[in-house]
């Protein structure tokens, strides 16, 4: 096959010229907070030899890392493994523990409580999704219509027990997925340990000025009279935009939040899920780590902060920019977007951003295609996550607090509206392309927020009631029995750490 020349006419001029230009050789990452370090570690593993990476540790890049929260999604396991960090590397060297999700308490005007667990997709019977059967039984067998009863992760979370899920699909535990409870500062340290050699070079410096032409960054002048030039620049300096060109990015910033964190030592792991409790000023999350409990408080800036922990407060504007990738520079982490750590979305989307960057690392100096595609998928991801978070505030009884008012001042996207309408109308779970949150996440959120379907797929009626009830009772029983057999999170972790130490 020959490279076609006849299709050249329909391709943009800049694209055609790019073929003669040199491939990418040097990448500079500004900011060594969690985003910068994670990006450097991931790039250093993924990219072939011959591409140098300079990581500039600038002052304050980790200032807003608190807004990455303390829970990761299940996908973090593979993300870290691809960087060369397995659980034997992670768990003994940090306070990281396992996470089955988040238990929400006292949420909203109705003081709702439910658990968002990490779980495999819910079963489908006779071609009909599971939630329809719950709706069907709501009036006749209400005790069988509770979603949480069928989620093994929730059973385990409520009992504070854990074990790695097996592959055998006959075992109820196999339906569990898990993430981690993590501290951004610890992960930053562990990731830094993986980038101590080529191709990543680390320097500590501040950016004094940026050398650029109208569109591209050509180089950076750093403190200590250091000048660096590169083909591609990644700004992970945080929301303060140390790279001036980044300040030109339009960013939809809905509201500001303030965060504070504190620790209390514990002798054992106090649970296997984060507990997030709604308060008059926002919320407080307690996360159980290996040897301490971490408390994260998020509130509206206008709240009486004297009531909150006396710990140092960090503020950030929640939102995301419309085009994180401009010309030859990309904003990543809190330079590009800051999400409220209401769920695992902040770290989840950072990891997706990095994975997307790796997939789209430029092959030539003309980055039109990469830039357009990265920005398109970035926008979709953040809009989807935004919709999911906004779903936490769509309730008939909001709290009349500054925090809630600000959250609800955000418009409801048409996608969220469609999702809520369809679910409440008939239990249908509307999905769009490549969403970061799956059907099981949305089902738990809808029902947790009291959004129950008014009707259900009538094909669910074809399963005889007796058989359905029996099947569901068996499932609940299997989950309960499984949970009883599992060790506590603490016991499991101790045995696992001992095993890792032995293997090391």
């Amino acid at each position: 096959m020959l490279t076609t020349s006849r299709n050249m006419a329909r391709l943009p001029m800049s694209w055609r010229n790019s073929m003669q230009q040199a491939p990418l050789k040097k990448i500079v990452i500004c900011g060594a907070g969690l985003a910068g370090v994670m990006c450097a570690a991931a790039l250093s593993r993924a990219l072939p030899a011959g591409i140098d990476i300079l990581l500039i540790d600038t002052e304050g890049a980790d200032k807003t890392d608190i807004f990455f929260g303390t829970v990761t999604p299940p996908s973090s396991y593979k993300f870290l493994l691809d960087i060369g960090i397995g659980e034997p590397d992670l768990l003994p060297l940090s306070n990281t523990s396992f996470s089955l999700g988040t238990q929400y308490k006292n949420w909203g005007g109705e003081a709702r409580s439910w658990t968002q667990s990490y779980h495999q997709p819910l079963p489908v019977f006779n071609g009909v999704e599971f939630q329809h059967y719950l709706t069907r039984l709501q009036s006749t067998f209400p005790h069988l219509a509770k979603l949480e009863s069928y989620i093994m992760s929730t059973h385990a979370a409520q009992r504070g027990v854990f074990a790695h899920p097996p592959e055998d699909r006959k075992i109820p535990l196999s339906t569990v997925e898990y993430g981690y409870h993590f501290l951004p500062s610890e992960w930053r340290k562990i990731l830094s340990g993986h980038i101590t050699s080529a191709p990543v070079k680390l320097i500590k410096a501040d950016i004094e000025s940026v050398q650029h032409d109208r569109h591209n960054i050509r180089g950076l002048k750093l403190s200590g009279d250091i000048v660096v030039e590169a083909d591609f620049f990644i700004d992970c300096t945080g929301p303060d935009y140390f790279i001036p060109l980044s300040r030109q990015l339009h960013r939809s910033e809905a509201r500001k939040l303030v965060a504070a964190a504190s620790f209390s030592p514990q002798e054992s792991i106090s649970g296997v899920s984060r507990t997030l409790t709604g308060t008059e000023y926002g919320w407080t999350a307690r996360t159980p780590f290996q040897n301490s409990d971490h408390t994260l408080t998020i509130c509206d800036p206008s709240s009486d902060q004297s009531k909150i922990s006396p710990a140092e407060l960090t503020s950030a504007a929640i939102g995301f920019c419309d085009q994180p990738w401009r010309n030859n520079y990309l904003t990543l982490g809190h330079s590009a977007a800051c999400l409220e750590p209401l769920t695992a979305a902040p770290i989840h989307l950072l990891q997706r951003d990095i994975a997307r960057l790796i997939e789209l690392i430029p092959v030539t100096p003309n980055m039109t295609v990469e830039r357009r595609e990265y920005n398109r998928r970035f926008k979709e991801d953040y809009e989807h996550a935004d919709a999911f978070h906004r779903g936490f505030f769509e309730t008939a009884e909001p709290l009349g607090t500054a925090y809630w008012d600000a959250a609800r001042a955000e418009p409801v996207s048409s996608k969220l509206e469609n999702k809520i309408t369809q679910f409440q109308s008939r239990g249908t779970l509307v999905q769009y392309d490549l969403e970061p949150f799956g059907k099981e996440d949305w089902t738990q959120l809808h029902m947790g927020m009291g959004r129950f379907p008014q009707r259900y797929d009538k094909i669910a009626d074809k399963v005889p009631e007796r058989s359905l009830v029996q099947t569901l009772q068996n499932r609940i029983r299997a989950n309960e029995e499984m949970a009883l057999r599992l060790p506590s999170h603490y016991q499991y972790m101790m045995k696992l750490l001992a095993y890792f130490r032995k293997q090391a």
Partner: protein
Amino acid sequence: MTAAGLSNKLNGLGVRIQLVESDQIGTIGVGEATLPHIRYFNNSLGIDEREFMRATRATFKLGIEFCDWGQLGDSYIHPFGDYGEPINDIDFHHFWLRLWHNGHKSRLDDYSYPVLAAESGKFQLPGPDVMKIGSNFGYAYQFDSGRYAQFLRQYAEALDVTRTEGKAVDAAVDAETGYITSINLEDGTEIEADLFIDCSGFRGVLIEQKLGTGYEDWSEWLPCNRAVAAQCETVGPSLPYTRATAREAGWQWRIPLQHRVGNGYVYWNEYISDDEAAHQLLSTLEGEPLTDPKQLYFKTGKRRKLWNKNVIAIGLSGGFLEPLESTSIHLIQEGITALLELFPDKTIHTSDADEYNRRMDLNFDRVRDFLLLHYVATQRDDSEMWRYFRNMTLPESLQEKLEAWMHRGYLMRYEHGVFLPPSWVAVMAGQNLMPKAYDMRANALSEEKVKSRLDSIHRESVTAVQQTPSHADYLTQYGAAADELA
């Protein structure tokens, strides 16, 4: 199909289904090649594969061979399956591209078991281990659509669908709601219902003639507007793939069934007369014609709403896209599936119709773009039609996909749609659109290791094909051959 699909799922739920059809109105009688999704549709109805294949004289289908699309003399097969396998989570084609750019050129097809099997006229069902070469592919059927309709009609009638012979000529509309309350047949019979599925073909008796829904004309993108079809005798063993051969003013299909071959020429009447098209078709038949050429007229596009008020258009009444990738039956079955998921109560909720339309619009749009790709991913300029396509301003969605591919072999992904990345690779690579670069992560492995891996995949594929029986033999062995043909 709709009656069968609805009756299977709604049987016993108090929904009465009445199928109104007229023997006076012929069916299109073509649209005989399918996509793998049909197996899920048939399975959901509990249809036995062997029985279905015998009844419809079906052959297996591993993909579609496209001849003369990139350049005259070229051919490639768009298979139902991936090429090779990902290496270190990186799509296989990037490694193939790497070797290609470094002077080690090979056919991408050489890493596809279904392509190699099709080329060798071989077939067997995939094994249980989907990770194994020789088991990790999909398949569909090529069948007599008239017989399929008959098969499903019998199925539906067995499930208490009432069949009424008659031709709908008018319908009554509620002045207040705008809903259709009944249809009137030619013999004066009035049939009332709560919900109407309009399968009346291009006419759209209810969706268009009565409700005036409107039609989105896509002939700007896909200008072919006629087809002439004819059946001929089979010459040689029946092959497990469909063929689509590009012509100067359109393209010609060849669909091998157990007992005959279906042929057709889809064309743009701007650049070829009906007579000339029929002549070209007949002159290229490989066997003796069994039927006179049948003329068909169509306008590519779709209804502005497939679900309007209490009428849902399924099939040609909903829209038409030329059968270049066998999507006609697929879009019908997508419509049926979406309707079942959103099946209304006595009260029709606007939200149900809106969601149905959203899903079907997405389906149609994405199929349209994929079909258009075949016409524009070409080096041909040897006729007015091809020059039209070369000068066309593409939909932005397709333009961006082409640019991404040409720049670095990147595939813009979506989740919801029938043609996923491997299909796009098949057509773009098959029609000589070679990217200028590839994912640089493919350079992480040494060239030797990459060559070794690709060679191994090719060898395994060839070995698997050698162990596969001929398609004709397998039809008999499997019990799918019609009794008189077994």
